[in-house]
């Protein structure tokens, strides 16, 4: 609860920072401070300390598993703010407003992670989405950004409508919004309940961009300014998945066998479509958009398996994927040429950046000694523990192999191809943050048990 209050208040504070201070540095410092405080607030939640007495009426809950996730997402937010503040400032000229929106999104993220009723889930998803529509369209003169904003907005509100219909139908058959009260488990589902579950699954699949509802993702991620794509594709996506899992585990966990086949189909389709289309992309940004669909396929395994391993694995996956993607996008946002050719010879001219990018890309590909490996390992382990549909695990391993191809194309361009030197302005603070991100990724690759310990705190 501490973290919700703090991030909502900090969003308001950020707006005032933009009014009061004329300096370019102030908003960035304030935002980094806010993210660090958010980590502290989540740590207090984790230890069961509440800064003010609140009666939540059982609408939100903060077990260690949820607070740990919020803590890790706040860490990602801190790194994101440190890496992106200069770029937001350069793009918009007044970064305080946009950082305020980012804190409002973070409020939604926390609500989506901790809801116990469908009402809170709906509000959380909306608080998360509405500021993102603005961020997507933030480059006002750029037509691609306009289109990304409009498309994201139309798709987002369409899926909200579908979600609300699902909630209404479930309310009709159960007469309550509390997820625990929905989780009764019937042998024969009434048509009302069945339609409600399917509609909720469709709308959540829209939000996490799982196939066949992924079609908006590449266009929106490509059109949105890179700094904001980095936020949309990481923290928001991980939180949407976390909410997806919590909803289906909390409300329909006892009916798991009845909808498991549906998640298996979505998982397989997402893995195939994401990986196969990512191979053919010419622009690195667009490749990352498709690869984020492919990574969503791996995260879908949490819903397919739905056991303790899957729950831990999803948190680990969310963190490792977010850290690596934030890092890649931070460098990408500074580059002028965002095609694969743009990366030619980066290792000779900018060896440090190339090394950092290599670590992130290795993590995304799931190479051992990086966090991405254990994230994928836990997901597949969870699926194996269910003992069903082995073909899905084999498919996942094969598509991870395809993934290595397109991630290594960037590494190959950096190290084994000749290219002209290009201007990439980086401050020493930026480089230090990149290094910290890479170190965390490697540390989690050696000690995934740290995240697991946090989840089981």
């Amino acid at each position, binding site marked *: 609860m501490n973290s919700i209050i703090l991030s909502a208040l900090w969003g308001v504070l950020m707006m005032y920072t933009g009014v009061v201070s004329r300096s370019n540095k102030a908003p960035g410092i304030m935002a980094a401070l806010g993210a660090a405080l958010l980590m502290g607030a989540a740590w207090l939640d984790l230890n069961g300390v509440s800064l003010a007495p609140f009666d939540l009426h059982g609408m939100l809950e903060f077990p260690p598993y949820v607070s740990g996730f919020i803590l890790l997402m706040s860490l990602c937010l801190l790194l994101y703010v440190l890496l992106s503040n200069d770029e937001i400032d350069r793009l918009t000229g007044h970064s305080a407003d946009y950082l305020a929106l980012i804190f409002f999104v973070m409020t939604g993220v926390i609500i989506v992670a901790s809801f116990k009723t469908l009402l809170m889930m709906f509000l959380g998803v*909306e608080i998360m989405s509405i500021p993102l*529509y603005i961020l997507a369209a933030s480059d006002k003169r750029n037509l691609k950004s306009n289109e990304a*904003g*409009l498309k994201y907005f139309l798709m987002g509100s369409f899926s909200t409508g579908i979600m*609300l*219909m699902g909630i*209404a139908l479930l309310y009709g058959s159960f007469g309550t919004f509390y997820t625990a009260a929905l989780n009764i488990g019937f042998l024969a589902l009434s048509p009302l309940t069945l339609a409600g579950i399917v509609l909720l699954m469709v709308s959540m699949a829209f939000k996490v961009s799982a196939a066949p509802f992924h079609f908006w993702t590449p266009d929106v991620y490509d*059109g949105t300014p890179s700094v904001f794509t980095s936020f949309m594709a990481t923290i928001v996506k991980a939180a949407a998945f976390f909410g997806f899992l919590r909803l289906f585990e909390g409300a329909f966990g006892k009916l798991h066998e009845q909808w498991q086949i549906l998640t298996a189909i979505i998982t397989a389709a997402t893995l195939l479509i994401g990986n196969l289309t990512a191979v053919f992309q010419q622009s690195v940004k667009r490749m990352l958009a498709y690869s984020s669909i492919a990574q969503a396929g791996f995260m879908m395994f949490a819903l397919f398996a739905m056991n303790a391993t899957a729950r831990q694995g999803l948190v680990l996956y969310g963190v490792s994927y977010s850290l690596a993607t934030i890092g890649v996008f931070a460098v990408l946002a500074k580059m002028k040429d965002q095609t694969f050719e743009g990366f030619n010879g980066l290792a000779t001219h900018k060896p440090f950046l190339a090394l950092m990018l290599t670590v992130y890309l290795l993590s995304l590909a799931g190479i051992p000694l990086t966090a991405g490996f254990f994230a994928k390992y836990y997901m597949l382990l969870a699926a194996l523990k269910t003992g069903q549909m082995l073909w899905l695990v084999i498919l996942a391993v094969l598509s991870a192999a395809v993934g290595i191809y397109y991630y290594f194309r960037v590494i190959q361009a950096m190290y084994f191809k000749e290219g002209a030197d290009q201007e990439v302005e980086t401050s020493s603070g930026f480089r230090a943050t990149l290094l910290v991100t890479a170190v965390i990724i490697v540390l989690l690759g050696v000690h995934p048990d740290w995240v697991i310990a946090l989840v089981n705190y």
Partner: protein
Amino acid sequence: MPVNYYIFLSLILFSIGIAGVLTRRNAIIVFMCIELMLNAVNLLLVAFSKMHHVAALAIDPASTVGTEAQLFVFFIMVVAAAEVTVGLAIIVMMYRNIHSVDINFLNRLKH
């Protein structure tokens, strides 16, 4: 009136909304259809709320069971209003740049 009538009416409204979103090309009309979907849900929630409430009243005259959906409707209205402000701002911004609100324009991003 039996609750079935309300269910059918709101499902019809919802379907009209979905059909509009999928077929119309004018951003404003697509937007109106999305609002129609949300309002269909509002109608359905109020009808279900009344249904559950009447059933609970028969057992306990002081019962408040079934009223939470009516609160939910207010939240939906607030969120819809927030979406309208952001959505119309985006549409206006697009109109300023290209002097059109045609969705087909979006296909330009495909390459």
